[in-house]
């Protein structure tokens, strides 16, 4: 089976999985875990979008 993900889909899957584990392992209570997981997710996706736009400007 071969999966043909776009770059963004791959980044999205990576972000969801990594931020879930980060949230669970790096904080002590449920509320903080959810907050930290969302925080990591936002940074992952924000970083991807920023890097994407940066490369787009670099190319022009």
């Amino acid at each position, binding site marked *: 089976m071969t999966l043909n993900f776009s770059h963004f889909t*791959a980044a999205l899957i990576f972000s969801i999985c990594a931020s*879930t584990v980060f949230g*669970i392992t790096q904080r002590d209570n449920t509320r903080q875990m959810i907050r930290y997981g969302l925080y990591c997710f936002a940074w992952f996706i924000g970083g991807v979008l920023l890097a994407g736009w940066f490369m787009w400007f670099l190319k022009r």
Partner: protein
Amino acid sequence: MANEKTIANAAVPQTSMMQVVAPLAGWLIPGAGHLIQKRWIRGILIFLSVTIMFFSGLGMQGKVYGFNLGDLLDMLGFVGDFGNGLFYFIARSMDWGQGAIFRATADYGTKFVVCAGLLNFIAAIDAHHIAIGKKQ
């Protein structure tokens, strides 16, 4: 006298089977370290995260590193992959992740597999922290 006993007991580290079993189980089967300590939701989420990442990586034609003493990055790749526990051994025995890389996303797949293993290491250590009472 009783006070001295209490102090002496506190100084001796409390070793229980769970401190060893939880991280080992967590490494072998992602999330199992949490599940055997009745952290059901955390265990299931860790299992899903690591499993999805690992099999997405394989699906993207990512490489699974074997033990090697060659290039530094290859050795680190092996360390990361080894973190997947049972999944790693299954992948090696079934010859998954051994094909020639001919697509750009295959490199992402390789990173997915390595990162899944590293996340599983973090989760196993977290299970150990729960077992020793450092974390709830």
